[in-house]
């Protein structure tokens, strides 16, 4: 009997949408499940962490890890899976770049705790109880993971072999990635397993882009009447397409929603937010010099918009020890 490759699927700080994406493989998941042995998948099956700890180092062929690293439990599991796995696949926008939860880096831990446990209008907390890592209850000690000051992308905490972007990654790319591992036809370490072009290159709406794009006032999507063919930028709606990697299947733009950048930067760029900043700046046009500032001001919350999925992996949040690591 041949030994099936062991695969672990684990979530860190994420919403579980990536697990949904794996389930969305539909019948294809049955073929995958026949070819592999799943040793850990908390969302779907009952496994104990202790059974992973007992495994030999490198016994797991592939660990698919999604979600960012926000607390000490995430770090512990990320290190454990790295130790026991031959390959680690950073799965989804949160693991790759911090994802939407990475926007929390614009606030401090105390800001977040004060809002969630004290100041939010729906919170009733007269005693001011805040979560503690250690608390004594009836003579017993209870512990909680330590909530960090910062949201980290997975490759800022452990070594990652491959990256699969998206929020969540589309089924075709998941099948390609898992098949590549099972067949042993693997690209060089550090590769992002999706097309290398920018989103605009794969967008049908690109055909309607005018020769010279000019935005005199940035509009929100609800302020314009969009049709199914016109380029969003031509209508003044911010679309992250120029600075975002393609491969998502155009699910957003085909449903009249501009690209929000979940696939992260294209090849050889590390900071899609900064790159998009340069792109959109060149599209903004003022009637005269005095109006430049007011046109730029029509971009509401630029940091939040440009770094919606990539804040934790932005240039300003890079760590020195990661200098040698490739950009995802």
């Amino acid at each position: 009997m041949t030994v099936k490759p062991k695969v672990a699927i684990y979530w860190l700080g994420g919403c579980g949408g990536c697990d949904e994406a794996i389930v969305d493989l539909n019948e294809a998941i049955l073929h995958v499940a026949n070819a592999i042995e799943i040793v850990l998948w908390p969302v779907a099956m009952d496994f104990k962490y202790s059974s992973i700890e007992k495994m030999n180092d490198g016994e797991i062929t592939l660990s698919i890890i999604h979600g960012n690293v926000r607390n000490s439990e995430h770090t512990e599991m990320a290190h454990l899976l790295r130790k026991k796995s031959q390959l680690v696949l950073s799965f989804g926008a949160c693991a790759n770049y911090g994802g939407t939860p990475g926007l929390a880096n614009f606030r401090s831990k105390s800001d977040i705790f004060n809002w969630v446990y004290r100041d939010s209008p729906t919170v009733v907390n007269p005693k001011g109880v805040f979560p503690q890592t250690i608390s004594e209850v009836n003579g017993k000690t209870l512990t909680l993971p330590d909530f960090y000051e910062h949201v980290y992308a997975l490759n800022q905490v452990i070594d990652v072999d491959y990256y699969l972007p998206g929020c969540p990654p589309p089924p075709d790319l998941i099948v390609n990635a898992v098949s590549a591992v099972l067949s042993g036809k693997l690209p060089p370490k550090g590769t992002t397993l999706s097309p290398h072009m920018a989103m605009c290159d794969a967008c049908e709406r690109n055909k309607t882009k005018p020769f010279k794009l000019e935005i005199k006032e940035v509009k929100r999507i609800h302020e314009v009447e969009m049709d199914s063919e016109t380029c969003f930028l031509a209508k003044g709606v911010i679309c992250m397409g120029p600075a975002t990697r393609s491969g998502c299947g155009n699910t957003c733009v085909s449903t009249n929603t501009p690209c929000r950048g979940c696939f992260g930067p294209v090849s050889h760029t590390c900071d899609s937010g900064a790159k998009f900043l340069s792109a959109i700046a060149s599209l903004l046009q003022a009637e005269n010099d005095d109006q430049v500032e007011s046109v730029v001001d029509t971009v509401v919350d630029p940091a939040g918009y440009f770094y919606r999925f990539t804040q934790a992996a932005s240039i300003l949040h890079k760590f020195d020890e990661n200098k040698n690591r490739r950009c995802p």
Partner: protein
Amino acid sequence: MNEYSPKILCFKCNFGWGYLDDKTETREVVKNMVPVTCSGKVDSTHILTALKEGADGVLVLGCNQGECHFQDGNYQTGKKILLIKKVLTSFGIEPERVRMVFSIDPEGNKVPLEIEEMRNEISALGPINIGKCAMTATPPPP
């Protein structure tokens, strides 16, 4: 006691600033100067990388509005700078740390003066603190 002197990185458009006289003295006074063919060449990633790698401020010297040798490079970077200031504010960094000057100075005499003026302003802000308030960019835990 050593007085704090902010590190200023200066991008200088070669067409507008100092093309007649590339003074050795200027190069001695101005330690971190990057001559560029056009201020339009300065990308937001350059500015952010400079701040991340230890510059306390970034100064971009471009030609007067409407006088760019390459049509409108200075105008394009001017808009980038305005947007970067807003982004930096969200990251907890003072927007004054990035500045663009539109002028012309063939002799290059004004370059050290502009840098000195910016240095004085940044001195009041103190060293750049990327870890300030929201930006607790401490290294990942072991």
